[in-house]
């Protein structure tokens, strides 16, 4: 069978197959589910930032009419955590609470108002402990550390790596520059808040519906925490009203809803309020960073040293990976001959941070791209030249042993520079207007699974019915990124069928084969490849059967659009399917995908960063800055993205525009900020996120480098396009008004402060000036590949 797209399915801009249901509201989200006798669960949350739980008295709650069950930490003795190295959470607090909003107890009642009243009636006695709310505090010795026994520093994880001889690189440099920058944390703010329903099936099995991006991990953790065999549990991931990484962890409410179903025998639903989502969090980590780079006179990088200080909040979550991501992907865009990367993730008494679109990489990318613009100015180079001089080559290895295959970064750069008129307009615009440039790169799936195993990361099964209908089975959870449509499109292209006529069954542990989940932009690459393999196998079964029937050489038989042909002979797909079923019996085909093994280095920490392929993006942003009010308006963004191959250009454009929108929020206004240990404003009125009216014009440019290993050459677009937008806007602010805002979000008060500083003879910079007092361990030396 042919491997290039030739049926006109892949590459055609088409609405997503579930688009109508989404747009008309008929899609059933978890909050739309209702079952006879369903109870409403409500979680009592900690009012303390850090405290010992002395007692939880639930008697008054239990005595209330309509209350069916009350749970506390004692009901959940087993700890869990998404990463095997971070088993530090309990569904409800045991002994200690570590942030305001941490789940402490829960009630299931006949209606939500009773549940709320019962929660209010639970008496918790706390013994307050000193709270750690900043990284500076976390870096100091504490008698009462957030985890474990004191005295110790509230450090969660540390990384300290050195690839090549960094000091020699600095010594050889013509120019060395250092910068300190800060990237504030922020929340995913998906429109749908998280929810789950637990129930018992007629056979007495546990069935959990959840707005999750990771049904498989939820399945595993439910089994662990509830101490049940996985076979006794079914997880269905409902369609989600946005995830952005916010639904890739396993949360208290999912475990609690399940437990209520077990103890009451009745379906129980818990849907979080917006406030609770800010406490569940797992959003972008605040990262303070220091970056030092040496350059030759013509702008070639000789060495780089990055230190990142990562505020993790109260639990591990994905943090061990997030920390590594703050530095490990920087060498994917630029050829850095020597690189020292040191980072530390601290525990603080705030909601745990985790993965958000771009997982850990937007912070370091922001730092590097702003730093490069400053270096360009030092060296009297333009922003395009300094980047061009250092671009990574396609089919090369990075200094930290990441395998780069297809790479359309140079084309992305050229395309945005040309489309925006950057060369003529940069530095030449009237006061208050400016252009900024930046690039980025992202994974097409994490090379390693989250728990160690040698099995495929994605599996797809196809089943054909006698009418010619094809059903695609995959555990991939569509979190709005369009994975369901992607699966139908890949299979449709391979078999010459219309994607809208396929049935796609997804995200159900009883019905579908494994997919690890919708995170790290892995689904198109991995589930797409598994689907393609399954489709090719199915196609072979059908072609061979038809060849037998026609008594021709199988190589002469081909799939057309809805037909099977050989020379001038032709039959319909439906006829072919029946011939094949008569020949083979049940028509089922499977496919699996496992990333290649040679894509990573062999050092501690090498597991985070490798991917079978990297997407690339480049961005130019045009801004207007009001020098009297400090207000930055982003007028237009040009964004070129190397997706490998665009499976559905309409969805690609949607992901690019969505990424730009999310990036505008991060660069201009969003912040998961705290007053002490209290969230600064846990509502969508106080937590500022751009609405459609704050959105800018976007020119999306799709670059196709056709990856050798991606399905039809595809890579990813869900996360990568976010990355360059943030530094591009910050660089554009400098072009517009000549001040450096080394901290996002770029709030108007910061711009005004920087402008005033400049007026008073200062440098016109706003940003952090010091680093926490923390000593990294000496870096582990790793030889760069082939050097």
């Amino acid at each position, binding site marked *: 069978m042919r491997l290039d797209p030739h049926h006109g399915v892949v590459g055609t801009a088409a609405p997503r197959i579930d688009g109508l249901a989404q747009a008309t509201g008929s899609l059933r989200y978890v909050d739309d589910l209702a079952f006879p006798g369903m109870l409403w669960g409500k979680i009592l949350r900690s009012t303390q930032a850090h405290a010992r739980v002395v007692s939880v008295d639930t008697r008054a709650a239990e005595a209330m009419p309509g209350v069916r069950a009350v749970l506390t930490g004692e009901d959940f003795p087993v700890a869990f955590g998404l990463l095997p190295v971070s088993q530090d959470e309990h569904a409800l607090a045991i002994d200690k609470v570590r942030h305001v909003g941490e789940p402490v107890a829960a009630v299931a009642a006949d209606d939500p108002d009773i549940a709320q009243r019962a929660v209010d009636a639970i008496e918790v006695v706390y013994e307050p402990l000193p709270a750690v709310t900043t990284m500076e505090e976390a870096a100091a010795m504490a008698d009462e550390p957030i985890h474990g026994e004191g005295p110790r520093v509230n450090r969660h994880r540390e990384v300290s790596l050195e690839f090549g001889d960094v000091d020699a690189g600095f010594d050889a440099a013509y120019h060395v520059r250092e910068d300190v920058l800060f990237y504030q944390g922020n929340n995913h703010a998906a429109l749908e808040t998280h929810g789950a329903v637990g129930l018992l099936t007629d056979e007495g099995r546990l069935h959990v519906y959840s707005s999750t991006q990771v049904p498989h991990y939820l399945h595993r953790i439910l089994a662990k925490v509830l101490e049940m065999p996985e076979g006794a549990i079914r997880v269905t991931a409902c369609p989600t009203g946005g995830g952005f990484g916010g639904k890739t962890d396993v949360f208290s409410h999912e475990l609690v809803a399940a437990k209520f179903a077990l103890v009451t025998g009745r379906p129980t639903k818990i849907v979080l309020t917006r406030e609770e989502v800010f406490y569940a969090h797992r959003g972008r980590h605040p990262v303070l960073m220091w970056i030092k780079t040496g350059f030759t006179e013509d702008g070639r990088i000789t060495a780089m040293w990055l230190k990142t200080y990562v505020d993790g909040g109260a639990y591990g979550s994905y943090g061990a990976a997030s920390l590594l991501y703050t530095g490990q992907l920087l060498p994917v865009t630029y050829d850095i001959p020597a690189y020292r990367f040191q980072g530390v993730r601290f525990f603080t008494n705030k909601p745990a941070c985790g993965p958000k679109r771009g997982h850990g990489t937007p912070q370091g990318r922001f730092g590097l791209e702003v730093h490069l613009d400053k270096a360009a100015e030092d060296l009297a180079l333009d922003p395009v030249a300094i980047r061009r001089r250092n671009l990574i080559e396609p089919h090369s290895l990075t200094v930290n042993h990441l395998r780069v295959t297809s790479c359309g970064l140079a084309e992305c750069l050229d395309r945005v520079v040309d489309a925006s008129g950057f060369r003529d307009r940069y530095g030449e615009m009237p006061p208050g207007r400016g252009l900024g440039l930046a690039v980025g790169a992202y994974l097409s799936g994490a090379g390693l699974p989250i728990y160690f195993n040698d099995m495929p990361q994605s599996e797809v099964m196809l089943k054909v019915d006698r009418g010619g209908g094809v059903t695609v089975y995959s555990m991939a959870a569509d979190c709005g990124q369009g994975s369901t449509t992607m699966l139908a499109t890949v299979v449709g292209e391979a078999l010459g069928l219309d994607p809208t006529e396929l049935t796609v069954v997804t995200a159900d542990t009883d019905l579908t084969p494994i997919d690890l989940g919708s995170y790290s932009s892995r689904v198109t690459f991995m589930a797409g490849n598994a689907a393609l393999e399954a489709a090719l196998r199915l196609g072979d079964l059908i072609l061979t059967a038809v060849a037998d029937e026609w008594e021709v050489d199988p190589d002469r038989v081909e799939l057309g659009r809805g037909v099977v042909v050989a020379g001038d002979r032709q039959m319909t797909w439906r006829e072919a399917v029946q011939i094949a079923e008569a020949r083979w019996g049940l028509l089922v085909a499977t496919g699996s995908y496992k990333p290649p093994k040679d894509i990573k280095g062999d050092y501690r920490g090498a597991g985070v960063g490798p991917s079978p392929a990297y997407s690339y993006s480049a961005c130019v942003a045009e801004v207007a800055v009001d020098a009297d009010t400090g207000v930055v308006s982003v007028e237009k963004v040009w964004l070129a993205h190397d997706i490998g191959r665009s499976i559905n250009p309409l969805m690609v454009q949607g992901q690019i525009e969505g990424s730009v929108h999310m990036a505008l929020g991060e660069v201009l206004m969003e912040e998961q900020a705290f007053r002490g240990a*209290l969230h600064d404003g846990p509502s969508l*009125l106080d937590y500022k996120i751009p609405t459609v009216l*704050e959105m800018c014009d976007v020119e999306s440019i799709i670059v196709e480098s056709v990856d050798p290993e991606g399905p039809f050459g595809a890579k990813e677009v869900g996360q990568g396009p976010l990355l360059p937008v943030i530094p591009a806007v910050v660089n554009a602010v400098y072009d517009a008004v000549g001040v450096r805002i080394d901290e996002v979000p770029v*709030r108007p008060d910061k711009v005004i402060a920087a402008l005033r500083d400049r007026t008073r003879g200062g440098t016109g910079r706003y940003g952090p000036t010091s680093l926490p007092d923390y000593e990294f361990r000496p870096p582990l030396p790793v030889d760069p590949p082939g050097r």
Partner: protein
Amino acid sequence: MLRLPPLDYAAPSDLDEVVALLADEGSVLMAGGTDLVPNLKRRQYPGAARIVSLRRVPGVAGIDVADDGSVRIGALTTLAEVAADDRVPAVVREAAGLVASPQLRNRGTVGGNLCVDTRCHWLNIPETWRQAAEPCLKAGGEVCWVAPAKKWCWAVSSSDLAPVMVALEATVRLVGPDGVREVPAAELYRDDGMDHLAKRPAEVITEVVIPPLTGLRAGYRKLRRRGSIDFPILGVAAALRFVDGRCNDARIVLGAVASAPLRVTAAEELVVSEPWSEGLVERVAEAAGKAVRPMSNTDLTSRYRKRMVPVYVGRLLRDLGGYHE
């Protein structure tokens, strides 16, 4: 979603009955509900027991122009209606059109906007949070977290129409248990975050009357983070009368910097003291900036908001006086 506490609901079709019900302890008046309902959901009114709706009362909605040119706007008229009606003075339409978002303007009313509760970022937050913080003064606690030294609430007057109505010297008609009274808009407010309305709880605004604006140049500017939805964190309303290149009558009123609309008399006195010039505008703007002391209780920093006062006042005055940067 946050849920409402259990409440009774009454919607009489008679104004006297509304007033009578409001005299009961625990009654709260509702017009569009866009301010009241979120506040109730956040449990900001623990004593609330019954919603009394104004919506069925006839004759309290609608816009009329009297013979003398004064414009009467019924309290139940929606902000969307006001913004779209060209009999209404442009400055009022503009301010109404800047409130919240289209959905909220379709539902929110003029009366509700004039009475919108004062706001503070220690108060307009769900209950779990407030329990973690220890309730502030206005939430029934002992201290104001914005300025703990003094037992005083600094919650911010957050209405867009209030400063405009004060600047235009509008009057408000109140119907209460003791009958009807008409008060200048300025006298509706008290600079006290706990209790910002100088009216009795059982008094209902039925209409606001804007006198004829002959010869007056008036305008409104609003500072907020998102033009699409946010409350003001600074509002500037001005009404100026010019004779022979000189302003001889001025009202400059700031919103969202105190617990009531704030007339900046120092700026008003200065603006009429000499012929109009760019230099005068600058000094007036500075005087307005000096007159205010915003607290750290809304979006963005208090220092920034204070710095924006002269910028916004200057911009508005230049527009009204015909001087541009």
